[in-house]
């Protein structure tokens, strides 16, 4: 399989995972289009965030080494995100705190 094909397949899988995850977090549902825009931005970030934290979901990341630099930023992003959602602790120490 080509790297591009793998990327797309993984992307689809992530999105599915993320949708399932979001269902429990309806807080993100927004009405105004500006908020919609922001949400879109977050969703994109979320996909990336999830991709880079794939190891905690048991999915192998073939570029894990190349993206090591990103891990602290992504965990910090994740932390900020669950606090925005009104949770001081995420509740899964394997993912955040």
């Amino acid at each position, binding site marked *: 399989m080509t790297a591009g094909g793998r990327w797309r397949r993984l*992307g689809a899988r992530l999105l599915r995972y993320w949708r399932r995850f979001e269902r429990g977090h309806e807080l993100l549902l927004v009405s105004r289009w500006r908020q919609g825009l922001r949400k879109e931005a977050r969703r994109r970030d979320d996909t990336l965030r999830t991709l880079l934290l794939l*190891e905690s979901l048991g999915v*192998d990341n073939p570029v*894990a*080494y190349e993206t090591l630099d990103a891990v*602290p930023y992504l965990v910090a992003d*994740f932390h900020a995100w669950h606090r925005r959602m009104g949770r001081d602790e995420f509740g899964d120490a394997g993912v955040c705190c």
Partner: protein
Amino acid sequence: MIRFFGGKGGVGKTTLAAAFAVRQARRGVRTLVVSTDPAHSLGDVLGESLSDEPRSVGESLLAAEISGERQASNRVAEVLEDARHAVPREVLPAVERHLRRAVDSPGTVESALLDRLTDLVERTGRDWDLLVVDSAPTGHMLRLLSLPALLTPWIEGLAHNRKQARDVDRFADGLLGEVGPQNDPLLERLQNRRRRLEALQSRLREDARVHLVLVPERLPLAETERAADQLAEAGVSLGAVLVNRVASGDESGVLARRRTQERAVLARVRERFGGEETGVLTVPLLPGELTGVADLAEASGWLQSLDPPGPREA
């Protein structure tokens, strides 16, 4: 100038890479010979104890044995140290857990090895003029060489995704009259890694030659032909193909029969690789231990036709 020596297990890669390096150093070419094989034997062949950092083992000659595992754990320590100043204290344990998990991902050791090799490639032409790589068996080497091609689209995807998210965010901020963040440190880092991989890739394509080593038997021949195809696909040039441990031809009995088989394989090797661009070099079955710089220098006469232009000719 970069030369890889690759081939099936036990065909003589380490011996020939070391002999080649010793020979070039004696011609006055500042040379580093480095082993990337997880089961290092370069130090044994040179009769020196080697580590991750190149050390002098003779005039104009440096040697090292690099390890993907060590590089990966060094990188984790580095990233963790940076993180201490960059992220909230309470998430540090989670960061550390994610890093350790990332290091256990398949492919990480190879990527880390490539990362360390990139350091050495970058220093080639400055700290030494010739880099000789005693590589691991063929499959490992091919993966090593194809990694940049495999990783580049991934990193591009990541960077693109991240940039889009930033742009949409900035657009929304603009509507509110807020000022968005100008620099995205994560994006910068991802792009730096991509640039580094791309630089390595073009350096390998322009400046590297792979010498495939085989012994004159049928199985190694098939693997060599496959490796040559895959290397061509990866855009890396072949150097002369080395047929090692060729019998002298004056044997009788069983050895004479073997000799007939050898001739058939040699003919096929010449047919496939004998063109002007690559060429074929045969190295006979040599006497002696073939260890230590002096022994290797003696054996290296057979490698004369591989000589790049030396500083004394240039």
